[in-house]
Every structure is written in C-alpha cells, then in structure tokens.
C-alpha cells in the first residue's frame, strides 16, 4: 500500500494510515511466523544452529507415522463430540426454550436455562480439565460414588484406560460445547417473527414438525456459522487433551495439536512438528474455503 503525498479526493489515503498498526502487527505476529513455519517444515532442526534443508522428508515420514494417523482419526471422532452432538442438542434445546418454555413458563425461565447451559462454555478449558479430571480419575468422584452404592464392578479407570479415555474426553467436550450452540441459536431465533409459529400452531403443526419445518430452515445461517466454527475448533483441540490425558493412555487420545506441541517442545523435532502444523493449517483453510464457496452458492440460489 503506497501512500502517495497527493491526497485523493475521497481522503481514503489518510484513512489508510489507520491500518498501519493492525497491518504491521498482523505481518509480525501472523504472516512472518506462518511463512517461517512452512519453511521450517522442509528442514531438520533441533531449535539451535542452522536448520538443515531436507525437502519433503518430514512429509514422507508423516504419511508413515502411526501416531499422526491415529491423531487424525481421533480428530474425526472429536468432530462428533465438538460439532454433531452439540449442534443437535443445541437445536432441540433452543427450540424447546424458544417455542415452548417461553410460552408455558415465561421469558425469565427460558433465560435462566440458557444462562445455566452457557456457563461451561466460558469456563477456562484448563479449569474444566481440573474439574473433570478430579471427577473421572481412578479414585475420583464417579468411582467413589459407584463403590458407595455397591456397583464396584462398574468403576473403571475412565481416563487411564485406553478403552474409555476417548469417550470420557468427548463427554467433557460436549459438556463445554452445548452452551455455545444454544446461545447462538437462541440469538438467531430472536430475529424470527413469532407469528410464523402461531400460524403453524393453528394449522395443527406439533412441536416436532415446527422444529423440522420452521426452526431448522430459518436457523440455516446460524447453523452454518456454528458448524464451521466448531469444525475448525475440532481440528485444533488441545487444552482438554493436555490437561485431562496428555494424549494418553497409549496415545488413545492423541490429537494433531498435542503431537505438534510434543515434537516442538519435548522431542525438539522442530521441522517435523512444523510439517504437522502445516497439514493442520491446510486442512483448516480448505474447510473454510469449501464452506464459504458453499455458502455463496446457496445465497446465489436464493
């Protein structure tokens, strides 16, 4: 952006001065590191000395790395607990609160429920991890309670046993995510004309058919935004894994972000970690582009 000394008639030149802090910040904090990371992914480097160029070697290794493929597979499973389940629960809850509870019990009750379900969403994930870790650990709340009511054989090592760890972490993620979906959907419903619902009601449409024929189509833009943001978040799950299971037991909850962190700062295989991060970034951008294409096509269809 060349700033000429000649002010253009609309004064947009002097307006572009206001972009300087933001653009410089972006170049320093996002653009240069991003490019540096791509560059690093073609090298072997221990974090000291000079990186040694190795071409595509890191990427070849990736494709043969079971840990990497395992982490990708877990990402697919986390899409279920990050996106699919919370969106479904959020839709039903939002429709219930908006289209039933509000009429039956009043605005206050509906707001109270919304606030309650939203609370886990603003809790720092690390705190959620400490909280659930304490509930789920072998001598934690769940197992003590099971033993107290004589169901000893149901007590499991929820986060220390590869059979259950992924399900346990998924439960925590669902618990965190439902509030986000609910609040966005309810915000979307507030722009919908209630007379539509009244008309449907008079036509004898029951609650479920109103959900399917009215609420879901009307909420399409919000569902779209929530699905996109949560899918992208699913590709980046890190804190819950770090805090609750550290990727274990036996890599059963390993995710790409944790693998990247581990190679950057534990094994010091910087180039390799950078390659994993590049794959993650590529997937994220691809996802965003596909979604935005799809959205603009939907809009042009009207």
């Amino acid at each position: 952006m060349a700033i000429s000394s000649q002010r253009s008639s609309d004064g947009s030149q002097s307006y572009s001065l206001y972009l300087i802090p933001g653009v410089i910040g972006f170049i320093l904090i996002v653009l240069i590191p991003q490019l540096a990371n791509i560059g690093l992914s073609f090298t072997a480097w221990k974090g000291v000395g000079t990186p040694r160029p190795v071409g595509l070697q890191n990427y070849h290794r990736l494709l043969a790395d079971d840990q990497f493929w395992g982490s990708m597979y877990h990402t697919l499973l986390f899409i279920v607990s990050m996106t699919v389940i919370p969106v479904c629960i959020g839709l039903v809850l939002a429709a219930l609160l908006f289209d039933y509870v509000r009429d039956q019990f009043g605005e206050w009750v509906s707001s109270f429920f919304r606030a309650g379900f939203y609370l886990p969403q603003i809790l720092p994930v690390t705190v959620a991890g400490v909280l659930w870790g304490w509930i789920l650990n072998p001598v934690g709340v769940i197992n003590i309670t099971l033993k107290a009511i004589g169901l000893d054989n149901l007590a499991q090592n929820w986060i220390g046993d590869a059979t259950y760890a992924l399900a346990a972490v998924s439960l925590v993620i669902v618990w965190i995510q439902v509030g986000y979906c609910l609040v966005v959907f309810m915000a979307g419903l507030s722009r919908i004309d209630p007379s539509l619902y009244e008309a449907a009601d008079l036509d004898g449409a029951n609650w479920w058919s109103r959900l399917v024929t009215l609420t879901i189509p009307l909420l399409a833009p919000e569902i779209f935004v929530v699905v996109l943001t949560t899918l992208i978040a699913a590709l980046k799950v890190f804190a819950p894994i770090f805090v609750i299971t550290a990727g274990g037991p036996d890599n059963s909850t390993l995710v790409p972000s944790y693998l990247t962190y581990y190679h950057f700062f534990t094994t010091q295989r910087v180039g390799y970690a950078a390659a994993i991060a590049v794959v993650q970034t590529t997937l994220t951008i691809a996802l965003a582009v596909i979604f935005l294409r799809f959205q603009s096509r939907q809009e042009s269809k009207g």
Partner: protein
Amino acid sequence: MAYSVLSDGKTKAKATAAADGARRDSMRWVVLAILILLLAFTLFPFFLALLNAFKASAEYAVGGPLSIPRSIDLTAIEKFWTVSDFSRKLLNSVVISLAVSVLGVLISLFNAYAIGVGKVPGSRVILVVFLLGIMVPQESIIYPLYYMAKASGLYDTQLSVIIIFAVLQSAFGTYLLSTVLSTFPKEILEAAEMDGSTHWKTLWFVVVPVLRPTLMVLGTFFFIWTWNEFLIPLVMLVSNNNQTVSVAMGLTRGQNMSDPVLQASAAFLGIIPTVIFFLIFQRTLTRGIAAGAVK
C-alpha cells in the same frame, strides 16, 4: 414456507385446546423436568467443586464427595492458594487480559475506521486475510513466535503475550466493527467534515461515542478469551511469576490426585473468576453474541 391460517382456525384451535388441555398440562411439567435434569447434569460439576472445596480431608475420606460438609474448613483452599501463589496468578491474568482488551479494541477500531468508514481500497481482501490468519491453528505460528521472542528478549515477559493476543483478537474485532461501521450514517460524518473536523477528531468525538456499547462488548470478549487462553501463555510464560491462572490450572494435572479435596479447591478457585465475569457480563455478552450473529 407459507402457512395458510384456516378460516375456522380459531374455533378449531379452541376445540383442540380444550381436548388437549389436560394432556398439555402434564406435558409441560414433563418437559420442565427433563430440562431441569439436563441442567442439573450441566451444573453438577460446579456444585461438586463448591461442596468439596471447604471440606476437611478427614470428612471427605469418611463421607465421600457427595456428603454435605459439617463445617467450613479452609485448609485446602489456603494450601492451594499458597502453593500455587494464586494472588500472583490472578494479578497476571488481570493485567494481561485488561491490556489485551484495551490494545485489541484500539487496533480493531483503527482498522475498522479505515475499512468501514474510509472504504480503503482492498478492504475486503484485508478482512479475508485477517480472518484466515486467525482461523489457522496457533501451533503453526507458535514456534517462530517463541524463537522471535527469545531473539528479541521478550521471551517470558507478559508483554509478548499481550502483543500476540491483541493482534490475533483484533482480526475478529476488525470484522465485527467494520460491519457495524459500514452502516454508520453518512450524514453525521459529512456534517463533521463540514465543521472542519479532521479524521482523527471525527473518530474520537463522533464515531467512538456512538460505538461505545459495541466497544464494551468487544472488550469483554477479548478479556474473557485472553483469560482462558492456554497454548501461547503455556509456551511463552515459563517462570512461575509470570504465569496466568489458566496456565497454572493446566499444569496442576495429576499433582493432587492423592488429595481430592485439594483438587476440588483448585477447581473451585478456577471457577470463581469465571462466575464473577459471568454475572457482571451476562447481559453484555448475550447482547454481543446477538450483534455478532448473522443478520
């Protein structure tokens, strides 16, 4: 989807209402009961932390996690507070989060002023690049940032974290404020121009007062997001004196497994600030989310 209201819709509805009345009455209590159960499940972990944070260890050993404490025992809370130097962690979190919200809002405001009001050429491209830039996982920039911080002497300083988050979060802020500012009444701006106001004065005396509620919401968002951030502070802030609450919590994993009451206290102390923000900002936040939703 157009619904035709039948001409006799009202009478029909009345008839069904009478027939359904009894069934609906019990129905509403069933729905409410299910919702209450779900909410109880959602809030139960919070309740558990509250129930056990003030329990004496001996009492926990006897009565387990579900018993009501007979007395308020502050041993575990005090122990966690001292061991983790919690006052320090709280102060660090407050300083970092506040600085990020002020700086982040400022950068967002400047960007949005140029894009939304100034209609600077290439605005759309800038917005898309910014948003793509923050969409990508933080792992893809963390190592270069870590290296740059070490090279510039900013490693293990709160300033490094403040700069990084102010820039990262300003992308969302720029997007939100540009949308708001692109609909800013032209007449007001033109009137200010007529009065010989400079862009700088117009920004501070015309635009900012109108945007104040939105800026507050944005600042709130930035504060809470920064408070909850984990990966970048974990990497950048290695010394105990600089760490945030979120990082301190993330590192307690498994340390207190043998001391459940201590774990409950840790969780409880981690929850308290969130609940306070929640109560203060509840209205601001929901209004803010509505503002950010697709129109």
